[in-house]
């Protein structure tokens, strides 16, 4: 059904050039915008994609002079890469999960409870972004040595959680604040338990914001390198740490390009998930759900 409805206008357009042209004129701005954005946003990334599949690429050819997959095999069979990739995905997952566990109750408190210094505490999380990080790492390392956290998974998780606090607290706090309280109150008035009200009314209302916070946290953690380096090595070597070292110091461009593409995969997958629900939502909305 859904495919049918969405396919119809397309077919019409294809069959009727006048209509197509009219539509095109109406959409001219959009088309121009998409083309320009495509060149500006996707263009630079195309060079990375091309390099990943290039055996050789010499100026002045617009595309690689020799295509091939040999660097994929060479890169993906590197022992450091095969070890780092699952580690990175797992680490980002754990950090995101733990960050949600400690931050979401806090953001609920910030939004719903009244205690002295509430606003001050909430705003102080801005400091996690304002102090140049590198100035802090050496002192942090001293602390971590005392706590026996250097080179351990808990150590890396801790240092990476710091980077997630801002997003994971601010976004949900606002979501909790923006809920229309009358809904909850109405439910309470008809005798629903607090837990039930939270699970069935509050939570669904904040889920979009929570999804956003979690998605962004996962992506930024997945790409974090400096904290992971100073605290993690030698036992914990994440993909971004590896990628920095390969991109900056490798005469062979292809290794870096392949790793970049591999690193994109998880976040693109997440985006695709969102995409799928876009369509799902469109369909259900079409049926009036």
């Amino acid at each position, binding site marked *: 059904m859904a495919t049918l409805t969405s396919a119809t206008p397309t077919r019409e357009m294809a069959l009727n050039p006048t209509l197509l042209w009219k539509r095109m004129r109406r959409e001219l701005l959009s088309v121009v915008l998409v083309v320009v954005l495509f060149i500006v946003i996707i263009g630079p990334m195309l060079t990375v994609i091309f390099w990943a599949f290039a055996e*050789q690429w*010499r*100026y002045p050819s617009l595309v690689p002079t020799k295509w091939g997959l040999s660097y994929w095999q060479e890169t993906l069979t590197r*022992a*450091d890469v095969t*070890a780092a990739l*699952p*580690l990175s*995905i*797992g680490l980002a*997952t754990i950090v*995101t*999960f733990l960050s949600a566990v400690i931050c979401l109750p806090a953001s609920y408190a910030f939004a719903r409870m009244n205690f002295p210094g509430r606003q001050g505490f909430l705003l102080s999380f801005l400091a996690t972004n304002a102090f140049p990080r*590198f100035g802090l*790492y*050496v002192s942090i*390392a*001293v602390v971590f*040595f*005392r706590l*026996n*956290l*250097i*080179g*351990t*998974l808990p150590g890396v998780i801790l240092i990476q959680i710091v980077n997630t606090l801002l997003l994971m607290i601010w976004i949900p706090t606002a979501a909790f604040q923006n809920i229309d309280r009358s809904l909850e109150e109405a439910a309470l008035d008809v005798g629903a338990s607090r837990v039930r009200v939270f699970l069935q009314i509050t939570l*669904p209302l904040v*889920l*979009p914001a*929570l*999804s956003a916070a979690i998605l962004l946290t*996962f992506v930024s953690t997945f790409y974090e390198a*400096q904290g992971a*380096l*100073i605290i993690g*090595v*030698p*036992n*914990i*070597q994440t993909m971004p*740490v*590896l990628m*920095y*070292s*390969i*991109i*900056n*110091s*490798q*005469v*062979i*461009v292809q*290794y870096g390009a392949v790793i970049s593409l591999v690193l994109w995969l998880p976040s693109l997958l*997440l985006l695709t*998930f*969102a995409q799928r*629900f876009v369509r*799902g*939502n469109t369909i*259900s909305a079409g049926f009036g759900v």
Partner: protein
Amino acid sequence: MPYRKFFAVTLLVGILIGALIACSSPSAPPATSAPAATSAPAATNAPPPSGGKSVVNFYTDGDTNISDWIANKVKPAFEKAYPQYELKVTTVRGVGNGVADIAARAQAAMQTGADPQAEVFDWDPRGRPEYIQAGVFEKLSPANVPNAKNVPEAYYLSEYGMPYRGSQVLLAYDSSKIPDNEVPKTFADLVTWVKAHPGQFVYCRPDKGGSGGNFVVRALYEVTGKDPKIFQSADPDPKILAEFPKAWELLRSMHDSIYQNGSYPAGNNPVLELLANGSVSMATVWSDQSRQALDKGVLPPTIKVVQFTDLPMPGSYAPLSVVAGAKNKQGALDFVNFMLSVEEQTSVVKDIGGFPAIEWKYLPQDLQTQFTSVITNNVPYWPGGKWSTERDKGWYENVATNIKQGSP
């Protein structure tokens, strides 16, 4: 409510992946188990991860040709020769300050008496004298590294770093654009050539890559009577420092004729890239890196390398340093000794296009004949340390910009 689904799926996928990793990756670094040993220094000999083998943690921030060579060639050979050890190679280049960060960590470990989780660095500790003073590094000599007896005295940079591979900065040019007879033979020739061909020559920032750093050093030699030996003291001689402005003037006079009216890339590899895609036709490069790039086809075969005939550009011997407080210090010393063996020194020449740190006469005869063209006893040595700081500061202040001269 599709959100709930989205949320649930995301969470589920996350948990699944996490679980998968937790149970399926013995090959992944055994993160959770490794640190257990750190709290109990008494129970030393057998750290858990490698089943009876003691780990030697090796750190490098060298370019990937070096780290790949260590990981793929040296590591198996070392573990075969010393079955009791496991060599763990970690590359820390590009993020933060590289090995210097790990050295800082080692110092922090000293303060608390913890295991620094670091044994050997492919790194020159002279860059951070405060760590040497603090006792972070072990003194190295033939007493604890027997093979060091074959290393010529002149190669030693300090008693805390054991030289183990050398390379030299060369002038690379595109022979399809520059006829061989026009290629500069001396530094003065180069200056003339660059000014006659604006935008065609480039070198990198001296602190970001040795191919640029040693080029700047060569300019310093040029204005101080072409005698590298005067730079040997650890503390820069004020009389010599007073001569530096002449070099800045010389380099500044080339500034506008450098690639893009004076744009200096941030490393050895960005320079090789400009050379590879034809943006420039001449540049300074490391001997080993250019050889690897030519072998792999990164540089077109028309690229050729030469050295100045009057006085070469400096090269350097990369040292290994050993952390004094390392848990497995004996393993570290054994590793340094192993790297100075004839087999590994041969590998330095054959696999990474480097120069050996032991004298050529100890290497196989056929190798000596094969490499006669590069065998030279005339590679100037630059002492680094404070001299390099003076070089970099002076360059940034007087060549990359002329703010200081312009201001009252």
